[in-house]
């Protein structure tokens, strides 16, 4: 366990040194947040009755998404790992006395955490004091906050777990780039990155919220804002943990079999 913590630590520190990138990222995320709130405000004013949640809940959702973008970003893949896989240099990685799945998992998790760590606090602070319709509201209650913390953790782990499937698939495909674009798109769309899941047609939403993609960022954000509460919230978190177990276990099996195939073929 200690060596995986070491991987985590070195990645985390490495991620912190990009100061200008963090400032630029925060500026970008504020701009996106404002932009999205503007768009939804217009839709809200066009047909208030059709809005699937309260406007305040949606602004919270949008700011949380921006603040924690680093944790859940669907497009992030470790260049080094991908290059290693396509070039066949992954063989060197296999010589290390560590489990590859856990090692890669720790690296990916660390990069995500360090990106979010730099950016989330200022965004939370500023968004919390914005005037009127732009404000990030505090969580719906102490229970919701506790539930949110558990749910976010599970969500991030599922996000990394899903990305591990994409790494493992990179062993097979002729076009890692094309495959990645397709995968990123599906994950992004189904996890509510284009529009939040409650804005999907009701029938579609009822299916979507059961899928692992909803268990990444949608569930925690909806819990925080109070759009998902009580027994529903508990069930959603339980569902998250089920997916977490399935996805990490499945991902590990899949990656191991990809690696074995590589060994047999001789890279």
């Amino acid at each position, binding site marked *: 366990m200690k060596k995986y913590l070491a991987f985590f630590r070195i990645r985390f520190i490495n991620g912190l040194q990009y*100061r200008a990138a963090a400032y630029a990222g925060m500026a970008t995320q504020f701009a996106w947040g404002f932009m999205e709130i503007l768009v939804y405000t217009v839709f809200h004013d066009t047909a208030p009755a059709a809005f699937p949640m309260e406007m305040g809940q949606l602004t919270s959702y949008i700011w949380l998404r921006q603040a924690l973008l680093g944790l859940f970003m669907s497009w992030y893949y470790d260049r080094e790992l991908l290059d290693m896989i396509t070039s066949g240099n992954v063989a060197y990685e296999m010589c290390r006395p560590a489990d590859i799945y856990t090692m890669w998992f720790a690296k990916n998790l660390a990069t995500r955490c360090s990106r979010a760590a*730099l950016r989330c606090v200022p965004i939370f602070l500023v968004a919390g004091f914005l005037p009127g319709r732009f404000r990030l509201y505090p969580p719906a209650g102490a229970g919701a906050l506790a539930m949110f913390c558990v749910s976010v953790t599970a969500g991030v782990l599922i996000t990394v777990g899903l990305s591990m499937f994409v790494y493992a698939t990179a062993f097979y495909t002729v076009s890692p780039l094309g495959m990645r674009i397709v995968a990123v798109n599906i994950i992004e769309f189904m996890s509510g990155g284009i529009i939040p899941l409650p804005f999907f047609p009701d029938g579609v939403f009822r299916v979507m919220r059961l899928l692992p993609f909803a268990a990444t960022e949608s569930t925690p954000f909806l819990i925080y804002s109070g759009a998902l509460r009580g027994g529903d919230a508990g069930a959603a978190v339980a569902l998250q943990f089920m997916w977490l177990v399935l996805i990490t276990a499945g991902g590990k099996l899949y990656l191991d079999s990809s690696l074995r195939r590589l060994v047999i073929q001789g890279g």
Partner: protein
Amino acid sequence: MIRLVDICKSYRVSRRGAGLGSAVKSLFGRRYDLVRALDCVSFEVGDGEMIGYIGPNGAGKSSTVKVMSGILTPDSGECIVNGRVPWKERAAHVRDIGVVFGQRSQLWWDVPVGDSFDLIRDIYSVKRADYRQILDRLISRLDLGELMRTPARQLSLGQRMRCEIAASLLHRPKILFLDEPTIGLDAPSKLAVREFIRSLNRLEGVTVILTTHDMQDIEALTDRVILIGKGRILLDGPIERLTAAGGDKKIDELVADMYRAFEI
């Protein structure tokens, strides 16, 4: 004819300690150090000379080459290449020079080498008849016949370097800058490249400036060596001055001794 007089150039670099504490600290403020990459560099190279430009990593070799090829404007000093100031008359200047960056390719990775050459012809607007003649000569002297129809990604390192050199000569430059042209090559390829550079210089009078870490290149090719360390010219003279002092020591050892002596 190349003339550099008191060329100076400094850069700002940021410094940061190790560990989590200083990583967090560097988020708020950074210290910068001024590094003198070139510190009053002066030398002259006559037409048709072949010089070896040596020095440890980070000594200022590539900065000098960048100044002479017009990529970099120095802070102060004077540089005249064939009567022009490189960074002021860039377009006219670069028609006269060829540059080979040993570690970077100018060939298109996925298309046949010949197509890359044709494109370079169009960039330099070389006349078709001239081009045919130049290319035929390069093909026969660098033995490129087979390679012209091969995509660059399928070439061995030695084959690729031969093509790179040819690509830099298609517009018939009067001066050729070679940055580590033999890096990573196997013995026969090294010999072939050296042989070609020598004949280019002897037969066609092309001025060659060669930067390298391979002392055998220097021994085999150049009559004159310029040594740079920490941005200063430390030694400029015939190669015999190096070899004579050291008795029967190998040239690599001599150079290592010299780096130590100059504390670079």
